[in-house]
């Protein structure tokens, strides 16, 4: 009897260890039998798109992906995590990657931990993608990744984008961007901006870029950081802050309910959908743009064959209907910048951010 109990507990403990081993937020779990067949069935239906994918493999002869990993440099639930999971899933759905793409969450230092890990420990891993966004380039520009720079990695491409919007509560005295700017020009300290990132972070930069475009000294703005866009928006709904410079994907629910209004989108062209009819900042006379691209970098030592393969693969994936669907679900727009086009895009962006941060007195 005693041994039986002991065995039972041993089994329980073993299960505990097993669950622990599988639980890191990495990949679709080792499914049970019934689930496995269904999961595999999904890519099988995409034979046609898998065939279309064949040229990519020819174009990048000499590299076949295997054991592909995508690092999301943050905890589950944010934009980087979404980038890895949705792109990983689409890549395997359209047959550009055999099997699944393993997603690893490596949070820390605003992406700095993952960056350092890639540069120092996985520099020649051909099967590694790391999710990136302007949060990455902004921190690189401000030197927040320690000794590492943008030249230590290879910039593969962007496949989608979120956009910045300037929002106020529904009952706000500001009805147009013009109203807000007028008040700011008279007394910049009288408007409370509240965003989801620290001083010098993305949400703060958005309003500073806007202020610069309107000829207002960005350093006179009053910005209060909150823990994430959601909390900043809640504070705006509660009347504690006046303006929340968020991203489209963050404000959809409240926008739909009419609790908030969007004064301007910081985009090149007016947007459709729920933001139909909202003018861009540019249309209102202020040349400010903020594109939250969703893309990837790879290790600096990635071979040219692998790099070309990933550039092609992301391009093909971005053209697939599956990706359109992912973008729509995530509330994003399609913006594709790949390889030779993406590298100058990133370096220009970083140069701009660096200059801006310097002008703003955030770095020396």
């Amino acid at each position, binding site marked *: 009897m005693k041994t039986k*109990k*002991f065995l*039972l*507990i041993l089994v*329980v*403990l073993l*299960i505990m*260890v097993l*669950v*622990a*081993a599988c*639980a*890191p*937020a*990495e*990949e*679709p*779990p080792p499914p049970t039998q019934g689930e496995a067949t*269904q*999961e595999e069935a*999904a890519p099988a239906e995409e034979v046609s798109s898998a065939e279309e994918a064949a040229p990519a493999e020819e174009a990048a002869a000499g590299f076949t992906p295997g054991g592909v990993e995508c690092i999301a440099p943050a*905890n*589950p*639930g*944010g934009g980087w995590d*979404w980038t890895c*999971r949705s792109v990983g899933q689409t890549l395997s759905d359209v047959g550009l990657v055999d099997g699944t793409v393993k997603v690893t*969450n490596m949070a*820390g*230092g*605003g992406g*700095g*931990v993952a960056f*350092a890990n890639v540069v120092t420990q996985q520099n020649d891993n051909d099967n590694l993608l790391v999710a990136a966004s302007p949060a990455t380039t902004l921190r690189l520009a401000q030197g*927040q*990744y*320690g000794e590492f720079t943008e030249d230590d990695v290879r910039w593969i491409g962007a496949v989608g984008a979120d956009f910045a919007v300037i929002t106020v509560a529904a009952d706000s005295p500001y009805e147009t961007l013009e109203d807000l700017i007028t008040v700011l020009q008279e007394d910049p300290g009288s408007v*409370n901006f*509240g965003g989801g990132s*620290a*001083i010098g972070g993305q949400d703060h930069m958005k309003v500073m870029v806007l202020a610069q475009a309107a000829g207002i000294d960005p350093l006179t703005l*009053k910005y*209060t*950081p*909150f*823990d994430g866009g*959601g*909390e900043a*928006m*809640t*504070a705006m709904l*509660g009347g*504690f802050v006046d303006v929340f410079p968020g991203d489209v994907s963050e404000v*959809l*629910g*409240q926008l*739909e*309910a009419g*609790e908030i209004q969007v004064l301007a989108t910081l985009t090149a062209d007016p947007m459709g959908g729920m933001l139909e009819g909202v003018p861009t900042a540019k249309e209102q006379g202020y040349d400010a743009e903020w594109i939250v691209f969703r893309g990837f970098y790879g290790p600096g030592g990635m071979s040219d064959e692998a790099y070309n393969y990933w550039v092609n693969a992301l391009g093909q994936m971005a053209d697939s209907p599956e990706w359109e669907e992912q973008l729509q*679900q995530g509330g994003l727009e399609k913006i594709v910048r790949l390889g030779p086009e993406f590298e100058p895009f990133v370096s220009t962006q970083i140069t701009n951010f660096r200059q801006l941060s310097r002008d703003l007195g955030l770095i020396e």
Partner: protein
Amino acid sequence: MEILNFLFEGFAIALTPFNIAMALAGCFIGTAVGMLPGIGPVNGIVVLIPLTFALGLPPESSIIMFAGIYYGSQYGNSISAILLNVPGTSAAVMTAMEGNAMTKKGRAGPALAMSAIASFFGGTVSIVALMLFAPALSKWAIRFGPAEYFALMVFAFSTLSSLSGKNLIKGLLATMMGLMLATVGLDPVSAVDRYTFGQLKLLDGLDFVVVVIGFFAINEILRYAENIHDQEVFTKLGRVMITAKEFAMSFWTMVRGAAIGFFVGVLPGAGGTIASFVAWTTEQRLVDRQGTFGTGDIRGVAAPEAANNASANGAMIPLLTLGVPGSETTAVMLGALLGMNITPGPLFIANNPTVFWGLIASMYVGNVLLLILNLPLVGIFVRILKVPGWFLMPAVVAVSFVAVYSVNNSPFDILLMAAFGIMGYLLYKTEFPLASVILGLVLGPLMENNLRRAMSLSDGDWTYLFSSPIAIGLWIAAIASLFLPLIIKRFGAASEISKEEVN
């Protein structure tokens, strides 16, 4: 009764065999991940999201399962806390303190049973509240700005002395240590790094999980190693169920715990740790006549368990009606909902009645399932104590190492955990209350950030902190809780005053 109609429709959805199976799966996974130190519901849900998409599950079934994982984990996290003094999350720290004291007295069974019953009670009461008041409470959550959060933190700190045991100075010092540890990492306002010693991995500050596991699991094995030649400590199993008297004694404790947990849970960012802590200290002040709290009083298990379950349900309100996730777990659930083309927000309930009411009904079902799942298991779980310590303790530590590593895939976290284990052991030996350190660590950033936000928004005007009725109410509660124990002692008229404070 419109609500009843909706609720019946909800039950029609929740009681389909498929959705019952989903709820059961969620509850089971939740209990398992909650039980394991270091791994929480967020890991369980993240792993399952791609699966729900791949299988094309309807949104209501997916959210029923995710919610099951979330509240199921609140049942699970007390088990290792009570039996092994290893809380799986910081929300179970109070349960570990009180419940493990009961285990050491040979009363592990009643502690586990009470934890399951209190969890059920807290869960069920809070679903009723969620169902009736969800839209109204989202308005209440919005009224909480930086000044109100700051006052709430002051209130929480004002009750800290209850945790200090005999030596108030050591209690205060322990809290200070927690606050100091809380300053490690990027300064949240200006993004300047503090006390990181150039170590990138410290930029985000110390992970609660790493500290909690170090303080409790590693500390526990060091203590075990110290007594390795002594007699087995954990052999008495004793009674498994609680008595009617114990239930009656804990009834109002559970009611208050559920209420506190629910309201704290509704506030984005506050969460289970604060809920369980405030519930415990409130009870300690109200009902602890003989000074038995902290030494294995069953009400000290009932209060935090009712509270942390209620707070998990309360957290669904900002998630669903504001689209604002209050915790990592709800952030992941938000992502999953958006992926299913459902936008949480003020129109969520009106636009997705099947999802909302199906979820509510499934939560009733899920809590019943969890009670049925957990009560009989008490008898099995207590037998873990029969496992020889030389096997059990290393196994616990091995699981802790795997868990801590898996959270960030970082060997550095393991070293940090070991360092905190040694620190925890030294603090334990010198009789500093570990729970106070943890609470300093949890409350510190919230208090600092909100104070600085308040100062930033008001251009440094201190009166801003007292500018709303909610804030003033919390300040009064804080002052009352500091002086109430003195007054009670002086007049000995405890019961009248305690009733006032409840209201």
